[in-house]
């Protein structure tokens, strides 16, 4: 690894560790930034690297929330009774029950979402291009509607989880580091994955699936596994969100197709589809833009956001990293090489 890269990674890690203590007032925003990075990086696994633009990844986020909540509650109480009380009643959780439920719930959410990704993918991966996008969007919307009519998990009211036991400021830092840990894991994971034959195979599917078939690549198998891996991380992120938000309901916070479901796509487009750093850069820029407009242009924030999406999609499709690759191809090793006879032998 080049020296510059090591410095870059060390610096990123240092900022990650220091940020919540340096800016204690922004603890929740910083945690949300990591959530954006996670959903952007995982969206890019299928959207950027495999060429399957899913609008339904938010399904795994929402499902992760519910699975984590149900597991953590179900370990201690009857889930139906608990949600019936809708935050009322006396439902105490000891510290051990809270943290045990939290970790098992988050892990369970990841595993459950992986399995559902394989099942849904088996049906939806027959669709190509915009049909896949619409098909997966349909799954997410349908799931939201179904869950909001399912009384056992609280119906349209959603679920109220126990509050973080202890100092709430420490709680903020705790959730920040949970998101950051998943985010860093995702980054390290995809960085490794894209360097393997597996990574090359999903790139081949993106560039020309028919050719990949003709070359004997197990296309469906790779597609299912990739989506399952993405769903694993998104599901866990959803699980953390459930505990961080304390109360969540199906349509606005869990299966929020028009918010986070679209934001993750915009982040990736803004930063650069199909690149390692693109989703991270895009998530940071997008989150900054969003927070600034929400704070200083309240009332116009959705207009500003819409304008950003339109400008990105129409004029800036390759994103920041794609633009850099175009302007400075030599930074990425894209060049005509001098013939080296020895090397070829």
């Amino acid at each position: 690894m080049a020296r510059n890269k090591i410095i870059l990674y060390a610096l990123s890690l240092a900022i990650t560790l220091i940020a919540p203590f340096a800016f204690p007032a922004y603890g929740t925003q910083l945690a949300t930034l990591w959530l954006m990075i996670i959903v952007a990086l995982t969206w890019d696994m299928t959207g950027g690297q495999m060429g399957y633009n899913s609008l339904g990844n938010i399904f795994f986020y929402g499902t992760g929330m519910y699975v984590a909540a149900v597991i953590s509650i179900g370990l201690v109480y009857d889930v139906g009774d608990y949600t019936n009380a809708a935050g009322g009643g006396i439902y105490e959780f000891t510290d051990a029950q809270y943290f045990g439920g939290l970790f098992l719930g988050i892990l369970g959410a990841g595993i459950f979402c992986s399995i559902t990704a394989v099942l849904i993918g088996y049906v939806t991966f027959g669709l190509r291009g915009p049909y896949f996008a619409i098909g997966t969007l349909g799954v997410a919307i349908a799931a939201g509607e179904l869950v909001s009519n399912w009384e056992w998990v609280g119906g349209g009211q959603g679920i109220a989880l126990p509050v973080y036991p202890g100092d709430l400021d420490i709680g903020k830092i705790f959730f920040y580091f949970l998101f950051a840990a998943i985010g860093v894991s995702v980054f390290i994971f995809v960085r490794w994955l894209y360097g393997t034959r597996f990574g090359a195979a999903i790139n081949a599917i993106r560039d020309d699936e028919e050719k990949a078939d003709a070359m004997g690549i197990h296309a469906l198998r790779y597609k299912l596994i990739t989506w399952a891996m993405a769903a694993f991380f998104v599901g866990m992120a959803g699980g953390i969100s459930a505990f961080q938000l304390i109360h969540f309901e199906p349509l606005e916070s869990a299966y929020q197709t028009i918010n986070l479901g679209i934001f993750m796509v915009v982040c990736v487009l803004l930063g650069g589809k199909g690149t390692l750093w693109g989703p991270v850069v895009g998530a940071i820029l997008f989150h900054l833009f969003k927070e600034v407009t929400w704070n200083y242009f309240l009332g116009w924030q959705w207009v500003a956001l819409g304008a950003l999406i339109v400008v990105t999609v129409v004029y800036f499709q390759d994103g920041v990293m794609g633009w850099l690759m175009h302007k400075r191809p030599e930074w990425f090793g894209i060049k005509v090489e001098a013939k080296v006879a020895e090397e070829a032998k």
Partner: protein
Amino acid sequence: MSSIIEVQGVSKAFGGVVANKEVSLSVKQGGITGLIGPNGSGKTTLFNSVVGYHPIDAGSIKFEGKEVSKLPVQEIARLGLLRTFQQTRIYGKMNGVENMLISLPHRKMSIWDALKSYSSEDYERADHLLEFVGLYEKRKLKSGDLSFGQQKLLEFAMALMNEPTCLLLDEPTAGINPTLINGLIDRLKRANAEFGITLFIIEHNMRVIMSMAETIYCMAHGEMLAQGTPDEIQNDQRVIDAYLGAH
């Protein structure tokens, strides 16, 4: 020499259009077999049937004695029967080396193998084959930016990387600069002789196919019109009529 591909009475219709009507042919193991015919005579349809791109209506297709007419494309490819496309297909967003590496045979690769990185032998083989087709200097460029002829050469190198036992080439010289064609003929012959790959080639360029193939089949209107050595085909009145439009 025994035959590696046996096509028996294959028919294929698209709606009312009969593209192949009871076509039979055999491709000799280790040799070079040609397939010619006017545009629309059903050559590419026959190729597509052989590699499993679409189901056939009747007949049988055997590869190394095994019936393959009901198998999907990827499985046939993993048996070692590979095709290149008339409209060249490469992975445009990847560079030459990546295109080569992804073409490593997947028939022996398990999902755990897929999680490994490429070995230095893989890179050497990729570089060697890129050198073989004359693309070594441009191997780091985005393949989509290469010229059509270069993409065609890259596709050929990718096919070789896959270590097929038999390679079906759909018009390998179409769109290639005439001075490059001789080089390509030479490389196809070397691939056949050195790597022992059986070649089955659709070609419109008569000079090319006559100088390479041992056996040539000629199709017209979806039917097999004639077969024989290059000399026999060149002097066959039916073939001449088909090309000049007497049919």
